[in-house]
């Protein structure tokens, strides 16, 4: 063990002597320099280890041979060592990152850097107010000087602004210090008794606090910081953003006990305000480093408010929340700033250069994910706990603001990410490889991953199954060099194994969804066997998604469920993003999913704690969700299931995703939302509902169905058409869940299963066609029935199954739904559903006609049937559909028993005849009769038809003319123009416009507010002074 004061001593001594040492050559001085930095890290790490593991008690170091308050004393406890460890670590890594600069530039830079780090250590450890001031100045002055490590106009003026602002702040701090001394007669934090202070004394404390707070860059008094972030060398920027901030936030933490609660709360609010505005203004930002600047200012605000609002909560919580935000911000910011230094592109649109460099891209992605608080990174846990805390504290407004701001942050971060990955501009220049820079960035990312795992393991002690999604990604990533076929087989095996592993499920509802999720995925996975070459990174995320589906079912707590949910979002986002032109699509998907996720957080936070230790789907029956929580959860889940109003991500995602990914999204991912909604329903029916919310959900579902059907009918793109059809179908499901009756839920589950099968089949069929024709525009196809008969049969059966025409399974769904609606007394809703199912014929016919019937195009004269890997899964699903059409009991029977857990059965099943309170349906008999009425005319026709002459294409009675070309003869484009015309104003995409406009508004506001940063140093000072005055009067001290 080393006395931590040696950190200060050694750094100082080295600092003093370094210029002399340098005379013996830069090599030597660099060696000394780095060894001192490393020494610091080890000392602190050693102490942290002692405090946490060995439970050593906090260490106090007196100087000058006197005890405090006579002399200045330092203190190193668990918090100090924690903060210092990360500050020193980042300090070291940043120094390594800067090694090239340090080799070239003047020795002074090393001295300044070394003393900067020393300053932070002193700042964190010292317990004397005036000494804090001194170290603050040491820190600031060294930073000021280092801002011009790369000397240019910009960094100079930014540095100057920084100095002026810092100078003003420290002036106030000094004033505060002396007045605190005047009122309390002491300068040592332990010996200043806040209660002894008169209310003038509070002013002194206020001056202290506000000065430190200014250093924490609150909105709007933070223009100088932005300029610094934008213009200063990346290595130094990360030091400023991380090391300095860490030190200063810790100072704030140290003086917090002196502040009265009401003042603290206002600072907390100010932090939240900062978080909000910086993210709002970030929306409009194009310069990468300035964007990060905005983000880190925001994060500091969040950190401050977290620090304040968690003050009186148990330690573990403080560790998770404050520590989580702290580490998250620190690591992500350092890493990202370094990457900006590596990429050396100012505008975020020029970052396409990064997509050539996979390794760096992955680091970039991981850092962005962690910054946006996605699992498994610390920020995720912190956010979860923090929101929970605030919700329990009834601080709903703060919760709302924080979540909205985080949403903004996610928007601009992921816009950046997608713009980088999907950048289609031709890039010839390469990113030069600089070991030191890569090294630092890699290490920091590694650390964050390790911390994440530690948190999952030791804070929340999850079992393996909850990491499984990540493990899958990692394993497949390691195996990425082997051909995709083998990976596909492995994945199939993995899915099977996983299914077997979770198989004994607690109840049949889980089992049912298990079949949809796992078995459905497995069959869909066959279609991916058609992938050529390596298809890097695909199977990892596919498995991640499938496993997360499964984890949703076995999750025992809210957190486990939400974790699985987020993993599902991440993986599906990345899968969608793999599509060629999927930037907008994936971004939209991410934004909406995040919004949904935030609603879920709040919803779960409001929910009462679970009573039993069984899977959430089961145990949720025993608790009653408060109404607000129910609403939030419902909206959250309905976003995922693409309900009307929040559906606009859905068509994009389905259409732009790779064609063998779309089936997963449409057929399975949407069902996750259904599952969630069903869970709410379970808790809702088992506990006396307070107000009939599901009535409205029902209406939303119904409207989703009709609107989806119409939109689908007006599409030209086959996949968009199917996407909207999924939306409409899920609308049916949602509506019938909302009925909350036995028949209703049977119909919901029946339709879910059915939809899984026919939508998978159809999407895979379209995938096959796209694979052959390379187009999704339906009017560019036509007449393919001759070329792809097998695919045609799939589509035929698929659309019959959707349309609900007897005898196929679709009719069962329709029968159940209408019966349940009329039984429930939702007559108008039933009418609308009738209408939408009639409208669905429009798009269904359009789908099959424009692709398969009509005139074959010349360019398709000699294309082949879809590859076998597309055919196999299609036909597996077709067989399934046929089976349950022929023998409905196969599914109705089990569903009857499953739903029987929640409602008393209202249907009688004898033989194949199912009788509801209203009518009956004998699927088997219908099938037989249908066969009869089909075969008889066929036989007759064959009998009467003496001579059938099959003619070639174009041999048609066309006013005795031969039509000129398929394009003009094939009626396909804008097929239902007249219907659109009939709809008139109702045909406008109002919802899309709404979201578009609100996005516009947000950006406009952001742009408006950021105008206050005129770039004029004087204005910034004015901001600071006014800020101080305003806060003073708000606090009314």
């Amino acid at each position, binding site marked *: 063990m080393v006395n931590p004061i040696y950190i200060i001593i050694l750094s100082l001594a080295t600092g003093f002597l370094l210029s002399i040492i340098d005379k013996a050559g830069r090599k030597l001085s660099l060696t000394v320099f780095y060894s001192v930095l490393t020494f610091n890290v080890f000392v602190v790490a050693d102490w942290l280890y002692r405090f946490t593991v060995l439970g050593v008690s906090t260490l106090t170091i007196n100087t000058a041979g006197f005890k405090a308050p006579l002399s200045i004393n330092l203190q190193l406890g668990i918090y100090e060592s924690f903060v210092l460890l990360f500050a020193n670590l980042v300090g070291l890594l940043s120094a390594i990152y800067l090694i090239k600069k340090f080799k070239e530039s003047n020795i002074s830079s090393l001295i300044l850097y070394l003393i900067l780090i020393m300053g932070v250590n002193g700042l964190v450890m010292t317990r004397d107010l*005036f000494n804090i001031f001194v170290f603050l100045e040491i820190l600031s002055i060294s930073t000021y000087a280092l801002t011009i490590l790369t000397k240019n106009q910009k960094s*100079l003026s930014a540095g100057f602004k920084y*100095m002026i602002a810092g*100078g003003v702040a420290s002036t106030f701090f000094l004033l505060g*210090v*002396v*007045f605190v001394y005047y009122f309390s007669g002491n300068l040592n934090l332990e010996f200043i008794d806040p209660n002894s202070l008169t209310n003038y004394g509070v002013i002194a404390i206020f001056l202290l606090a506000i000065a430190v707070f200014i250093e924490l860059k609150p909105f709007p008094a933070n223009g100088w910081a932005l300029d610094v972030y934008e213009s200063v060398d990346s290595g130094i920027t990360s030091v400023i953003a991380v090391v300095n901030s860490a030190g200063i936030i810790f100072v704030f933490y140290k003086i917090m006990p002196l502040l009265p609660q009401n003042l603290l709360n206002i600072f907390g609010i100010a932090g939240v305000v900062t978080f909000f505005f910086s993210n709002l203004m970030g929306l409009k930002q194009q310069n990468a480093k300035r964007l990060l600047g905005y983000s880190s200012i925001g994060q500091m605000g969040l950190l401050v408010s977290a620090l304040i609002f968690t003050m009186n909560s148990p330690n573990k919580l403080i560790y998770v929340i404050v520590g989580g935000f702290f580490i998250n911000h620190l690591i992500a910011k350092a890493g990202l700033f370094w990457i900006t230094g590596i990429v050396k592109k100012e505008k975020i649109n020029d970052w396409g250069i990064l997509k050539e460099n996979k390794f760096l891209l992955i680091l970039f992605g991981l850092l962005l994910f962690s910054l946006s608080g996605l699992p498994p990174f610390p920020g995720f846990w912190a956010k979860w706990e923090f929101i929970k805390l605030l919700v329990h504290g009834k601080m709903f407004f703060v919760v709302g603001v924080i979540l909205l701001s985080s949403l903004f942050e996610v928007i601009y971060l992921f816009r950046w990410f997608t713009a980088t990955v999907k950048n289609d501009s031709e890039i010839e220049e390469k990113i030069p490889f600089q070991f030191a820079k890569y090294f630092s960035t890699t290490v920091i990312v590694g650390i964050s991953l390790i911390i994440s795992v530690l948190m999952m393991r030791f804070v929340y002690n999850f079992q393996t199954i909850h990491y499984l999604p990540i493990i899958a990604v990692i394993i497949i990533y390691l195996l990425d060099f082997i051909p995709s076929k083998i990976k596909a087989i492995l994945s199939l095996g993995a899915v099977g194994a996983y299914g077997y592993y979770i198989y004994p499920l607690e109840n049949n509802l889980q089992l049912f969804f298990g079949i949809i999720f796992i078995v459905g995925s497995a069959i869909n996975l066959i279609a991916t066997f058609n992938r050529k070459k390596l298809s890097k990174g695909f199977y990892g995320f596919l498995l991640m998604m499938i496993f997360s589906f499964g984890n949703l079912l076995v999750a025992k707590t809210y957190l486990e469920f939400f974790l699985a949910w987020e993993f599902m979002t991440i993986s599906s986002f990345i899968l969608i993003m793999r599509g060629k032109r999927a930037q907008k699509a994936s971004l939209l998907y991410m934004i909406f999913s995040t919004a949904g996720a935030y609603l879920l957080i709040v919803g779960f936070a409001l929910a009462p704690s679970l009573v039993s230790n069984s899977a959430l789907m089961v145990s949720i029956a025993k608790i009653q969700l408060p109404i607000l929580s129910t609403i939030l959860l419902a909206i959250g889940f309905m976003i995922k299931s693409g309900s009307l109003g929040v559906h606009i991500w859905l068509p994009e995602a389905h259409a732009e995703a790779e064609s063998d990914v779309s089936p997963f999204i449409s057929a399975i991912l949407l069902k996750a939302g259904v599952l969630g909604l069903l869970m709410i329903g379970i808790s809702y029916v088992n506990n006396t509902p307070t107000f009939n919310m599901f009535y409205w959900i029902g209406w939303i579902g119904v409207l989703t169905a009709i609107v989806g059907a119409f939109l689908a009918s007006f599409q030209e793109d086959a996949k968009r058409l199917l996407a909207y059809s999924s939306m409409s179908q899920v609308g049916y499901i949602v509506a019938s869940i909302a009925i909350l009756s036995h028949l209703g839920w049977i119909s919901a589950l029946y339709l879910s299963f059915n939809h899984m099968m026919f939508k998978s089949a159809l999407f895979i069929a379209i995938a096959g066609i796209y694979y052959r024709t390379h187009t999704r525009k339906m009017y560019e196809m036509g007449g393919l029935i001759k070329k792809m008969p097998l695919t045609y049969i799939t589509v035929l059966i698929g659309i019959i199954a959707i349309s609900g025409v007897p005898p196929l399974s679709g009719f069962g769904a329709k029968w159940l739904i209408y019966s349940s609606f009329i039984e429930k007394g939702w007559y108008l809703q039933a009418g609308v559903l009738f209408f939408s199912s009639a409208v669905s014929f429009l798009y269904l016919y359009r789908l099959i006609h424009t692709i398969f019937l009509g005139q074959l195009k010349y360019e398709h004269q000699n294309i082949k049937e879809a590859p076998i890997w597309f055919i196999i899964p299609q036909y597996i699903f077709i067989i399934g559909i046929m089976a349950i059409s022929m023998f409905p009991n196969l599914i109705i029977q089990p569903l009857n028993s499953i739903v029987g857990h929640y409602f008393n059965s209202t249907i009688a099943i004898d033989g194949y005849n199912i009788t509801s309170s209203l009518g009956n349906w004998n699927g088997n008999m219908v099938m037989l009769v249908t066969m009869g009425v089909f075969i008889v005319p066929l036989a007759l026709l064959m009998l009467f038809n003496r001579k059938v002459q099959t003619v070639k294409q174009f041999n048609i009675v066309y006013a005795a003319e031969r039509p000129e070309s398929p394009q003009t003869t094939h009626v396909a484009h804008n097929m239902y123009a007249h219907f659109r015309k009939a709809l008139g104003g109702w045909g406008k995409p109002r919802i899309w416009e709404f979201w578009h406009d609100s996005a516009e508004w947000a950006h406009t506001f952001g742009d408006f507010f*950021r105008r206050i940063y005129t*770039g004029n140093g004087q204005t910034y000072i004015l901001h600071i002074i006014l800020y101080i005055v305003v806060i003073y009067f708000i606090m009314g001290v």
Partner: protein
Amino acid sequence: MIFTLILGFVLLLIGIYGMLSQRNLIKIIIGFSIADTGIHIIIVSIGYLRNRTAPILNSAVDISKAVQQVVDPIPSALVLTAIVIGLAVTALMLSFVVELYKKRKSLSIDDYQELKW
């Protein structure tokens, strides 16, 4: 109400006013150091006790009753440090200005706002 304290605060305000109203970089720095000086005066005047002598225990004071006879030594100690730090910051600011002037031959703060928004 004590004159020196008032003086200190007045200087502080004047200094800040100077920083806010003057366009010239040098003048802004002068404003800063005026404000700084103001603070120093405040510190010293806080340490002062009526009709007592400096905390130097030479023949002028009776060692045994020193506590009743000398003014508060702490502010004097603090002010020394404060002054030095102020000097350091001012020096650094000035050298920044020198460099800025070299780059763009202008001392008006309005000419250095290319970083904004």
